C-alpha cells in the first residue's frame, strides 16, 4: 500500500502541492510573518492589476496584453507560469527522500522546451492571435476544430486547476496555518481579480514578479547551502551520502553504505521500462500542448521575440532545476540531521514536502521562512491565473466569437463573455477544490500533460507541418487522443486501483501517453488520407498559404499600439 501511494505521488510532483496530499497535511500554528509577507505580495499584485485594468480595453488587450510584451519579459512570465510550487517543493522533497530521482523529473519538464522552439514557437506566433486553436484551425473548417480545441483546452485547464487548488489548500494550511477552505477561497478570489480586471497584462506581471521572487529565493538558499561546503558540490554530495548512510544504519538497514550511496543514481522512481518511456513522452510533448503555455506566444510582437522568449524561459527553468537539486541535497545535510525539524520518529514536521521550507528556516531564520511561504503562495496564484485566462479564451474566443458568432462578434461582446467565464471558472475552481479536498488528485497533473501530449500536440504539429492533414483527420485524431488519454488513465493503477479500489488495473502502465499519443497521430494520418470530402480538398489546397505565412510572418497579427 505504501508503495502504491508512493508511486502515485512520485509520478506527479508538478502540481502546487498535489504531493502534499499524499503526505499528511496537518494544519500548522498560524504563521503571522508569512501572512504579512503574503499580504505585501497581494497588495503589490493588486496594484499591478489596477494599472493593468486601465490598459485592458479590447479583446486583444485581455488575451495577449496587446502583443506588447518583450521576449525577455515573456521568457520570465513563461518560467513563472511553468514553475509551480511543486516543482519547487515536490522536486526538492523527492531529492531529499530519494536523491537522484528528483532530477529525472526536472529533465523531463525541461526537454519539451527546445522542441517547442524548434517546431512550434515562431509558427504559432505567425499564424495565431489569441489561442492555439487559431493556429490549429487556420486552414480548416472552424466549427469542428474549435469545438475540439475548446474541449481539450477546458479538459487540460480543469485537471490542472483542480490539482493546483487542492494543492494550494493543503500547502497554505501547512505554511500559513489557515483552514483549507480559507486558503482555497483566497486563491480563487485573487486569481479572479487579476484575470477579470487585468487580463493578460496583469497575469503576465504577476507571473514575472513570482518568477523573480522564486528564482531569487531559490538562488539564496542554494548559495547558502554551497557556501557551507566551500562551494564544492563533491563535498556536499559526500556529506549527503554520509548522512543517508547514518540514517540507514540507525534504521537497521542490512547494508547502510549501499543505501547511502543510492541517492547518487536512479532508484525506484520507475519500475517498468514501458511506464518510464510513456511518462517521458507525456512530460516532453505535453509541455508543447499545454494551452496556457502556448497562449503566451501571442503576447509578443513577432516571431523573433517568440524565439527569444523560449531561450530565456529554457534558461531560467533549467537554472531553477539546478537550484532545486542543490536545495534537495542541502535539505538532506541540514534538515535531516536536525531533530528540531522532525517529529520523534524521524519524519519531517508537516510532511516530506516541507523539506525546502525547513531548509529556508535553517539557512535564513524565521523571516526567510515567512518569505519563502509567501513565495510558495504567490507561485500558485501565478499558475492558476494563467490557467483561468486560457480557459476563458477557449470559451470567449473559440466558442463564442468563432463558433457561435461565426467571427462576427465585436471585441466588447467577446470580452464580456470571456470575463463572465472567468467568474464561472473561479467559482468552479473553488468549488472543485473543496469537493476534492480529501481526494488524492496528484494524478490530475500527469493527466493534464498526457491529454496535452495526446490531443493538442499531434493536432497542432500535423496541421502545421503536414499538407495532407484535413479537418476530419485533425478532429478525429484529437478526439481519439483526448478520450484515450483520459480513459486509459481511469483504468490505470493510479485511479483504478489506488482510488477506485479494484484489485488490478486493465491498463498496467502509469502513463497513457505511449498508447494515446501514437494513436492520435495514426488516427489523424489515416482519416486524413481517406478523406475525400470537398472540404478536405480545400484544407489541402490552403496549406501553401498557411506555410508561407507561418514561415515568413506575412499577414501575421501585429502588436496593438498603446
Amino acid at each position, binding site marked *: 500500500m505504501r508503495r502504491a501511494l508512493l508511486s502515485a505521488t512520485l509520478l506527479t510532483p508538478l502540481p502546487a502541492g498535489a504531493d502534499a496530499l499524499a503526505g499528511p497535511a496537518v494544519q500548522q500554528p498560524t504563521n503571522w510573518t508569512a501572512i504579512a509577507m503574503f499580504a505585501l505580495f497581494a497588495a503589490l499584485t493588486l496594484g499591478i492589476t489596477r494599472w493593468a485594468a486601465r490598459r485592458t480595453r479590447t479583446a486583444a488587450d485581455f488575451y495577449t496584453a496587446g502583443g506588447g510584451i518583450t521576449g525577455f519579459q515573456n521568457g520570465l512570465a513563461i518560467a513563472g507560469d511553468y514553475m509551480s510550487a511543486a516543482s519547487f517543493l515536490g522536486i526538492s522533497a523527492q531529492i531529499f527522500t530519494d536523491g*537522484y530521482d528528483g*532530477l*529525472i523529473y*526536472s*529533465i*523531463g519538464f*525541461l*526537454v519539451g*522546451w*527546445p*522542441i517547442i*522552439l*524548434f*517546431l512550434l514557437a*515562431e509558427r504559432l506566433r505567425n499564424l495565431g492571435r489569441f489561442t492555439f486553436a487559431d493556429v490549429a484551425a487556420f486552414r480548416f473548417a472552424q466549427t469542428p476544430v474549435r469545438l475540439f480545441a475548446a474541449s481539450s483546452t477546458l479538459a487540460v485547464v480543469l485537471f490542472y486547476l483542480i490539482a493546483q487548488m487542492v494543492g494550494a489548500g493543503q500547502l497554505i494550511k501547512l505554511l500559513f496555518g489557515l483552514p483549507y477552505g480559507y486558503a482555497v477561497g483566497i486563491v480563487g478570489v485573487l486569481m479572479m481579480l487579476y484575470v477579470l480586471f487585468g487580463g493578460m497584462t496583469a497575469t503576465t506581471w504577476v507571473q514575472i514578479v513570482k518568477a523573480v521572487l522564486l528564482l531569487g529565493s531559490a538562488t539564496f538558499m542554494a548559495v547558502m547551502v554551497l557556501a557551507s561546503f566551500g562551494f564544492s*558540490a*563533491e563535498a556536499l*554530495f*559526500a556529506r549527503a*551520502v554520509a548522512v543517508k548512510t547514518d540514517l540507514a544504519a540507525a534504521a537497521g538497514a542490512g547494508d547502510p553504505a549501499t543505501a547511502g*550511496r*543510492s541517492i*547518487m*543514481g*536512479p*532508484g525506484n*522512481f*520507475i519500475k*517498468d*521500462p514501458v511506464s*518510464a*518511456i510513456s511518462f*517521458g513522452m507525456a512530460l*516532453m510533448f505535453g509541455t508543447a500542448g499545454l494551452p496556457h503555455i502556448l497562449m503566451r506566444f501571442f503576447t509578443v510582437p513577432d516571431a*523573433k521575440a517568440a*524565439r*527569444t522568449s*523560449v*531561450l530565456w524561459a*529554457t*534558461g531560467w527553468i*533549467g537554472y531553477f*532545476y*539546478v537550484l532545486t537539486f542543490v536545495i534537495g541535497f542541502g535539505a538532506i545535510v541540514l534538515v535531516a540531521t536536525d531533530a528540531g525539524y522532525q517529529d520523534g520518529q524521524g519524519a519531517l514536521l508537516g510532511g516530506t514536502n516541507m523539506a525546502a521550507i525547513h531548509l529556508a528556516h535553517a539557512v535564513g531564520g524565521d523571516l526567510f521562512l515567512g518569505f519563502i511561504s509567501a513565495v510558495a503562495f504567490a507561485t500558485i496564484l501565478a499558475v492558476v491565473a494563467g490557467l483561468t485566462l486560457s480557459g476563458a479564451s477557449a470559451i470567449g474566443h473559440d466558442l463564442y466569437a468563432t463558433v457561435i458568432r461565426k467571427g462576427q462578434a465585436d471585441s466588447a461582446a467577446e470580452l464580456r463573455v470571456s470575463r463572465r467565464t472567468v467568474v464561472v471558472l473561479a467559482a468552479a475552481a473553488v468549488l472543485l477544490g473543496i469537493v476534492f479536498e480529501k481526494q488524492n488528485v496528484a494524478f490530475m497533473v500527469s493527466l493534464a500533460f498526457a491529454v496535452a501530449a495526446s490531443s493538442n500536440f499531434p493536432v497542432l504539429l500535423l496541421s502545421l507541418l503536414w499538407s495532407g492533414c484535413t479537418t476530419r483527420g485533425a478532429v478525429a485524431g484529437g478526439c481519439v487522443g483526448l478520450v484515450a488519454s483520459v480513459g486509459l488513465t481511469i483504468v490505470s493503477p493510479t485511479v483504478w486501483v489506488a482510488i477506485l479500489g479494484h484489485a488490478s488495473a486493465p491498463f498496467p502502465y502509469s502513463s497513457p501517453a505511449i498508447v494515446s499519443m501514437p494513436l492520435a497521430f495514426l488516427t489523424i494520418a489515416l482519416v486524413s488520407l481517406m478523406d475525400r470530402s470537398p472540404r478536405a480538398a480545400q484544407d489541402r489546397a490552403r496549406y*501553401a*498559404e498557411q506555410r*508561407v*505565412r507561418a*514561415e*515568413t*510572418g*506575412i*499577414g501575421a497579427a501585429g502588436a496593438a499600439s498603446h
Partner: protein
Amino acid sequence: MTDADVARMMADPRYRALLRQRGRLGWMLSAIVTAAYAAFILTIAFDKPALARPLGAGVNSVGIVVGLGLILLSVASTAVYVHRANGAFDRALADLLRDHAA
C-alpha cells in the same frame, strides 16, 4: 496575400533555401535533444547501475553529470537555434520580404 503572392514566394529560390536551412537546423536539433533524452530514459529503464557508477574516487556519479549535461544541452541547443534564426535567417527573411512587399 493572394494566391499569386503565395505562388511567387514559393517559386523564389531564396525562400526555398531559407526553409530548407532553417528546417534542417530545427529538425536536427530536435533529433539531438530527443535522442539524448530517449537515451537517458532508456538507460534508467534498462540499466540503472550505469548511471549510479561513481566518477573517479569521489561520490559524484555519472548520472549527475549526464543529468546536468542534459539541462545544459537543452539550454545550449535553444541558444544555437535562436542565434541562427534571429541572426542570419532573419536577415535573409528581411531581404526576401523587401522584394515581396506589395
